[in-house]
Structure formats: C-alpha cells, structure tokens
C-alpha cells in the first residue's frame, strides 16, 4: 500500500515535471536562444489548456462546445490558438527592446486571465471546466502511467525539434541576435523576422504544454493561471537549469518542481491554521532561490555550451 502510494506520487510528480519541461523548452526558445523576455507564459499556457479542454470535453450547456473531439485534435487546437496569440504579441513587440515585450507579455497574461474569468459563455468563468478526459479514456490503457508515457513522448519530441532548431543555421542566427544585434543586422539578417519566428514557435510550445496540463489535471479554472504557477516557476526552472541549454531546461523543470513539491511537504508539517502563511513561505523560498542563483551562478546547472570552434588552418 505504502509502496503503491509512493509510486503513484512519483508518476504524478514526473507528469507535472514533464508538462513544466515543455513550458521551459518553449521559454528557452524565446529567452534562452533569442533573448526575448516573456513573462506572460501563464497566458499562452491558459489559452492552450482552455482550447484543448473546449475541443475535447463532451457538449455542455454551460460553456462553448465542448465538441467531444479526440485528444490529439485538442492538442493541435491548443498549439494553433497559442500560435495565433504569439503572432499578435510578436508582431507588436518584435521591433522594440525586450523591456517592452516583458511589459506587453504580462499584459497579455492578465488579459487572458480576465477574459477567462469574465466570459462565462466561453469558459464557464470561475466555475471552471471539469471532466477533461485523459487520452484512451474508458479503455484498458487509461492510467496515470500511460499518460506519463505520453507526456514523456511529447517532451522527447519537443526536445528533438528544438535541439535540431538550435543546431541549425536558423538557431545560430537567433543566438547571434541575442549576443549582438547590430552585428547580426549588419550581416543582412532580418532581426524582427527571426525574433517573431522564435517568439511564435516558443508560444506554440507553451500552448502544447497547456493542452497536456488540461488533460492531466482534468479540471481548469482561472485560478490555475495566476502568474505564480504559470510564469514564475517556469522562469526559475529555466534559469536554474541553464538558459540556452535545452537539456538544462528539462533538468531545471525536474529539479525545481522537486524543490517546489518538497517545500509543500515541509509546510504541510505546519498546523492547518497556518496554511495560507505556508503557501506564502513557499513562494518566498523559491523567490530567494532565484535570487541566489542569479547572484552566484547565473549560467545555471547545465550552462550553455559554447559553439565548437572550427579548426583554423595556419
């Protein structure tokens, strides 16, 4: 009994870490490679999650749809919706310095949250959407473990794609923009164009993460998309793991999710009347962790590898 409880905790832990790893990989595309500062992750995450939920849940009178579509259609919808949102944000901010993107992205996240909360016809408002099925529901394959395998496959797939992108000439241009914008422009690259592409790709990955989250958790409400969970944890994960390094992003997601869950166990020891203070204390610890990393080891656990120098002929 004890052992199976532990096993199921582990499965749920790893699934969460997997969803966060997808988000961290999306952020790595934007921040790690291109140096674009997006702190509206929660917005893209929410758009992905709600799109997938509306597409796949059985029809309901309380909100738009559901359309009862299969899992993969829901995920595809999540990716498309967050791509469109990323395109809009990217088009507005691609020409501006990254502080403006940061401010605009936090605005987008707030707008998405306000919209989700207030437009009950679409999202069922604060009551949320319940009963989002896992794939293979009502078959023998339906178990948390199967879903963990599915999430792991998606993490592996996304990792493969972004790693290919990183190694490609396209990825090199992104890093060149991050390191030296005027020089890259002088080399004839369209800065705004590449930035937009990276931003939209990152947003699409975040939307995928949102879809995966919806089917894992089974219930969505606006409270899940407060900036803390959606945005801040992902940032700490990427910075801790090593921004610019895709393996670092995944490792950071697992480690920081471990720390975050660990603090939950710790504050769980407090008496129940201190429950709200316990939650605040956890955020405080994670915040301090971020500052310590920034001051002492800004490159993270797995730093970005410098590119291999070509052997020079003498």
């Amino acid at each position: 009994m004890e052992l199976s409880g532990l096993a199921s905790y582990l499965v749920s832990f790893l699934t969460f870490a997997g969803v966060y790893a997808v988000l961290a990989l999306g952020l790595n595309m934007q921040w790690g490679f291109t140096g674009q500062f997006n702190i509206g992750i929660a917005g893209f995450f929410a758009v992905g999650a709600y799109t997938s939920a509306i597409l796949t849940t059985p029809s309901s009178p309380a909100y738009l749809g559901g359309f009862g579509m299969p899992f993969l259609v829901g995920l595809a919808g999540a990716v498309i919706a967050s791509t469109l949102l990323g395109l809009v944000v990217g088009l507005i901010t691609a020409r501006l310095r990254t502080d403006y993107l940061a401010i605009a992205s936090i605005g987008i996240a707030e707008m998405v949250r306000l919209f989700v909360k207030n437009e009950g016809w679409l999202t069922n408002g604060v009551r949320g959407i319940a009963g989002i099925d896992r794939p293979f529901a009502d078959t023998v394959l339906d178990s948390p473990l199967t879903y963990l395998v599915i999430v792991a496959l998606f993490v592996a797939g996304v990792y493969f794609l972004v790693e290919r992108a990183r190694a490609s000439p396209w990825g090199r241009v992104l890093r060149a923009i991050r390191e030296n914008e005027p020089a890259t422009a002088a080399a004839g690259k369209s800065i705004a164009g590449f930035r937009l592409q990276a931003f939209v790709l990152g947003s699409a990955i975040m939307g995928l993460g949102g879809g995966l989250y919806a089917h894992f958790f089974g219930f969505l409400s606006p409270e899940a998309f407060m900036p803390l969970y959606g945005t801040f944890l992902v940032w700490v994960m990427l910075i801790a793991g090593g921004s610019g390094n895709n393996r670092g992003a995944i490792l950071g997601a697992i480690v920081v999710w471990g720390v975050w869950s660990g603090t939950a166990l710790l504050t769980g020891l407090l008496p129940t009347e201190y429950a709200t203070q316990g939650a605040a204390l956890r955020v405080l610890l994670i915040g301090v962790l971020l500052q310590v990393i920034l001051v002492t080891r800004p490159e993270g656990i797995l730093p970005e590898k410098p590119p291999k120098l070509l052997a020079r002929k003498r």
Partner: protein
Amino acid sequence: MTDILQLLIYGLVLGSVLTMGAIGVSMIFGILRFAHFAHGDFMTLGAYLGLSFISAFGLSSWWALPAAMVGMGVIAVFIDQVLYRRIRRTQPVILLIASFGMALILRSLVQLIWGSDNQTYASGIQFPWQLDWLGGMRLKPDHLWIMLISLALVAGVHLFLTRTRLGKAMRAMSDNMDLALVSGIPAERVIMVTWVIGGALAAAAGVFLGIDTRLHPVMGWTTLLPVFAAAILGGIGRPYGAIAGGMIIGVSMEMSTLLIPAAYKPAVAFAIMVGMLILRPQGIFKGTV
C-alpha cells in the same frame, strides 16, 4: 453630464496613484535601464508599512503616508544594495528577472506578516461633500487630499530635478549615461537617490490606493500594468511624461466603465499601451526606446 464629471474625479484620483508609481518606474528606467517589475509590490509594502505605523501609534490614516514613504525609501535602497547592485554589471535584463523575483518575495512577505485578508486604514464611511454648483456632484475629502498631495509631490520632484545638483546629475545620467559618467557624476549616489525617490513615491501610491479602497497583498501587482502603461505613454525614462501618462490612463480607465464592464478596466490601460507601442513607442514625450 454629472456622471461624466464624477467619473472624471475618480479618474483623476486613480491617475494620481498611477502617476506616483509611474514617476518611479520612469526614473529607475532612465538611470538603470530596466523595467522595475517589483514596483507594484513596493506600493503594497509601503501601504502595509503605513498601516502598521498608524495602528502601532493609534494615529489617523493620513499619518500612514509619511511613515510609508520614509520606510519604503530605506527599504528600496536596502534591496538595491543587497541584490540589484550585485548584478548591475551584467545585462540590464538580468535585473529585470531579479526584480520579477523580488516582486514575489515582497508579496509573500506581506502575506506572511500581515495575512492575506482585506484590511483598511480606518473603518466607517466618509461622507462626501455634495457640490450643488457642479450639478450635485459628490467629492470625498479623501479624494481631494489625494489629488492635492500628489500635486505637491510632483512639484517636489520637479524642484528636485531642476534646482538641485543631484537632480541635475540624475537628468544628465538619464539623458546620456556615458557623457555623465565621464564628467564625474557620482553614479552610486545618484542611483541611491533614485531608489529613495522611487520607493517613497511608490509608497505614496500604495497609501493613496489603501485610503481610496482597501489593502490587499495583490493590490500593487494588479496596479503594475496601468503604471507601466502610464510610464510608456509618457515616454519611458521621462518623469514629466509619467504625469501626463498617469492622468490619461487613470481617466480613460474610469471613463471606460460607461461603455464596458468594470472588470475590464485594466484592459483599457493595456489597449492604450499596445496602441502606443504600435504607433509611437517612444511615448508622448519621446523617451528611450
């Protein structure tokens, strides 16, 4: 007509709050070149510092203002010395991440110390004056005071920036960092004063917000977006622009309730900001892009 005048008053009150925040954001951006994301939570912390001060000494609500401003000025310098100064040499964007983390640290501290329930400076309802000569419009004494004190603070900042050596040094650093440093401006002292003023004004914004509505751990965070919108509208790095930006955003947010649900007030600030970013990213007063 009375409705519109009434909303105009509310807008100017909100505008005063936003102006206090936006001047700080703008100055910090001008000197240190990063968007300070903990500014909203500076406002929150300032408001709560004021609350503790008046409840400790049993004073009336307006005493919260000087206490909060002094306290926040000190805390802002402390945070800069402990954290921001250490990473100032790296890219400004690292400071941005650090300030985002600082925002969450401050908010959870407020929750830990003061709890997460709504609190008020003074209980009871304040009776507004009925202004019959303005079509029966109502004006709360508190609202009048918020506007007058903001005006005085803005005038103080103006005098500081134009009449004192340090103020002139600050404008010089904001206009042309390299030239200012070459001519021997004491950079560290200017940065410190920037934090004192930014922190104190943020605290003033927090106290105004607390007097106008209530105190809550996320009160500052939810105001951050309109504050940034005001700073961008005025031209980021331009303290004077922040005043115009704050008033325009404040009035538009309140006026918008005539047309759209009040829940979408922040969306108005956001829409103005996005429009500005598309049409004239340098702001009305040509800030640093």
